């Protein structure tokens, strides 16, 4: 049974589905719900993701049935039908995705039947039931992908053994999803593997339509996107692997080696790609050596965010930055089973650098749990983890201030800077992250 959540840092299933559709070029959502649902989810995502903002068919331009009491009493199917037909007439798009809110799921509108009529006429309309009470945005991401995969992606295409699909990036919940995907595509491309990323502004719909050609799906998460990838395997026979987010040289090298093995990449090519990227990282890092050592820029790390980032950031600060991970708080709504999976993954971190791991969705209770840990240290000066650094979301700034720690926002919501094409994945993303973190330490100069 769930409990209340203080200062939640995600939106609902409808919101997750909505922002996923909004990230796909020439796809448009048709929200079948009360007025306000689309706006609420959209504003949360487009502001909290470092001001992703809106383009032309999202935000307040999102087609929405805006159902009120009358439809709640008499049913909203007629209104939905009218809205879909009108949307096809007015909005210039190639994929129309009907997604539903709490209201319509509770009153039991047969949205699948309504959409089926349009599908019969050959209209590119799909549908997913995404009532907000069914879960958070990550759940909504999986719901909409399951619908895209089974209702839109072409079946029975021949496989391409050098093509992969990348999953696991919930737009806005991963504030850096666009930059991250673009960088992953570049890296894989260096190895001769083409990647479909779907959710960047540079992806085209045909790559989605024909994504069943892929030889493999890579899910960059242990928990999000897994059920979508399972659906993909079931419908299109494409297997999947789950990979941690590769942040920085150590994790990215390991990732590329696994890809090399999977796709039987020529070892000379693999070594060259790794060496070139490694060189890029260290030729920029090397000149910072004075600063980092002279100024003792090692920190105790407190990391707060979703399961994927918290693991990857912990790895990066431990393996590449040489910091001491102290406390890791995972804020997703996860089942017990998923929590176990994630916790096991943390056990692969050497015990000397393994942080205390908690699963906690309440912003305030994270502080409380951290303070309990600090109490246990029994430090007579009361500063057992000074100097500390908090990598979290904007909601965690008061916690950082309480510790007199440095702070940098990596997880949703980020509202104090703009995020466009920045990314933290790969060697170069690791360089960007190192640059950002160290910049915080000198920002008062």
């Amino acid at each position, binding site marked *: 049974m*769930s*409990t*209340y*959540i*203080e*200062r*939640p*840092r*995600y*939106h*609902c299933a409808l*919101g997750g589905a909505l922002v996923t559709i909004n990230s796909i070029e020439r796809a448009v959502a048709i929200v079948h719900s*009360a*007025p*306000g*649902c*689309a*706006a*609420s*989810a*959209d*504003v*949360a995502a487009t*502001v*909290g993701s470092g001001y992703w903002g809106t*383009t*032309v068919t999202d*935000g*307040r*331009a*999102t*087609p*929405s*049935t*805006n*159902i*009120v*009491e009358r*439809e*709640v009493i008499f049913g909203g199917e007629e209104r939905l039908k*009218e*809205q879909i037909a*009108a*949307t096809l*007439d*007015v909005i*210039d798009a190639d994929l129309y995705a009907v997604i539903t*809110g*709490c*209201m319509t799921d*509770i009153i039991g509108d047969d949205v699948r039947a309504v959409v089926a009529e349009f599908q019969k006429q050959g209209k590119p309309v799909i549908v997913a039931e995404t*009532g*907000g*009470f*069914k*879960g958070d945005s990550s759940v909504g991401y999986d719901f909409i992908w399951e619908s895209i995969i089974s209702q839109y992606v072409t079946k029975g295409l021949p496989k391409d053994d050098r093509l992969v699909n990348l999953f696991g990036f919930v737009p806005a919940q991963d504030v850096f999803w666009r930059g991250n995907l673009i960088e992953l595509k570049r890296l894989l491309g260096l190895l001769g593997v083409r990647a479909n990323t779907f959710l960047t502004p540079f992806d085209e719909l045909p790559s989605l339509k024909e994504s069943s050609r892929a030889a493999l799906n890579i899910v960059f998460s242990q928990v999000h996107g897994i059920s979508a990838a399972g659906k993909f395997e079931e419908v299109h026979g494409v297997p999947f692997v789950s990979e941690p987010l590769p942040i920085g040289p150590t994790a990215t090298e390991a990732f590329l080696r696994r890809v090399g093995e999977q796709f039987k990449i020529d070892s000379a090519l693999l070594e060259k790609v790794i060496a070139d990227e490694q060189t890029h990282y260290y030729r920029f890092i090397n000149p910072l050596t004075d600063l980092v050592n002279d100024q003792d820029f090692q920190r105790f790390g407190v990391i707060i965010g979703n399961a994927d980032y918290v693991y990857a950031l912990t790895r990066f600060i431990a393996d590449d930055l040489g910091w001491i991970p102290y406390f890791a708080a995972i804020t997703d709504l996860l089942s017990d089973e998923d929590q176990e999976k994630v916790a096991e993954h943390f056990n692969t971190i050497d015990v000397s650098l393994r942080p205390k791991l908690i699963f906690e969705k309440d912003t305030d209770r994270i502080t409380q749990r951290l303070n309990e840990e600090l109490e246990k240290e029994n430090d007579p000066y009361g500063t057992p983890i000074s100097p500390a650094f908090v990598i979290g979301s904007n*909601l965690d700034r*008061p916690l950082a201030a309480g510790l007199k720690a440095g702070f940098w926002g990596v997880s949703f*919501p980020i*509202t104090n800077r703009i995020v466009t094409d920045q990314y933290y994945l790969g060697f170069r993303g690791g360089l960007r992250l190192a640059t950002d973190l160290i910049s915080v330490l000198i920002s008062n100069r």
Partner: protein
Amino acid sequence: MGLKEDKTVPGREDRVAACMAHGGCASGIGKQDKICLKNNERGFSQAGLCQLLPTLGMLLTLPETAVVIHGAIGCGSTGFGMNTSIKLHHLLRGNPNAKDSLWFSTNLDESDVVHGGEQRLEETLLAVAEKYRPKSIIVLQTCTPSIIGDDLVGVIEKVRPLTDIPLLYSHCEGFKTKIWATGYDVAFHAMVHGFIEKDKEGPPPRKKERAPGERPKVNIINLASMGKPDELELERLLNAIGIDVVIGPNFADRETIRNLTQADLTVSVCPTHDDYLVHYLHTEYGIPYVMKDMPIGLENTSKWLLDIASQFGLEKEARAFIEVEEAKARQAVQRYLPALKGIRVFLSAGEFRAVVTGGLFQELGMEIVGLRSYHHDDFGTEFYAQLVKAQGDKDFPVDIANFQPFELVNLLKKIKPDLFCGHVFDNAWAARLGIPCITIFRIFDFYVGYRGFYEVAKKAVRNLRNHSFNTKLSQNVPEAYRKDWYDKSPFAYIKSDKLEDAADLQDTAESFQTAVAAA
């Protein structure tokens, strides 16, 4: 019925026959059948807001209050955004260390939808009361618990005896009204019932007569969207003619809100925002009110001020003050007038704000060529005719739309204004067409009174001077709508449920064409 007796707040379509779908021209506003307008709808619609959002935005401003959003998790997802904006407000109010707002979601899931969420709500209220000791707890009822039949009031009354913290509640289900401005009423309802009517000390007694020589004290009803600079300007205007002010209820604590019952006059700066509260204070506490104008632009400011002054026999002081202030403001904008002369402007915002800002632009020598109001009710009616008259009977198209950017973009492409002045999230549509934009209000800037008159002129000239960002942008953005949409009337999807309206619509289409041609 009124705020005191209403168990739940009626939607504005019922309370004031508000309408959110109509297209026509300014000269026609007020001449249509109100009831018919009220029922207008769209066959194609885009996302609006729901009443929960303004309710949450207002109630989160109450200091050290915990807001519990009873529903599925998404309904509280904008809390952090409002928190950011409220922190900026506090910064402007000289309170940089204000704590973060506190908001909670009861996080109803599939099992709760079957079994009900009352127990969860009760547990949440008790836990929040004990752990955070806030100065008040406010529950917002959303669609899901309302549909599954959770008894919000029952839970509140069960918990009330168990805590000394004031409990407030709001029925603000999104599906209950098309007019999200109802959310303002809902927030006022929660504040009044929580801090006055059901307060542990009971409602304050009526104020005694003002003693001879005592300075009059007036309430200024503020808006969550009004910044500190504007509040300072309003305070300055009234103080200057010998009137003290109490500003609330947004950002106000329990005592200040109770104190609203002790004023000599209630002053609204936005009738369409405030009437529900203003009438409560009038009916229950006999407080007279001024609720006609918004002090934006010279004429409106002057009327507003004289109206208030006349309540206390201070007209002479007000006239003297107005004369000095107007002279100063007129002199200050002299340098900007040449650049503004004949500029064709399109406005978009809540109706009242849009029409009065139109008056300000006309005073600067500009012409209104189009206006979009989020909804229409009687408070704004007379201003349309005034605007048309003030520019030599040149009519202009009006779109009553709860956003609906597809209509706006269609209109803008036909009208091609020189300047767009819109609410936040409106300007982008004009910007992508390459039109220079100024925001109709921001919490950091002056808009009201004399200072506002000068600042808006300066801002408009600055944006007209260089809008290369928008110009270049317009050459690099995709089109959202099919080409043939732009050949149609912007109001093609507005439906009226009265048969004789077919004729009205024909009239509308014709007068619209004329208005566009004139513009």
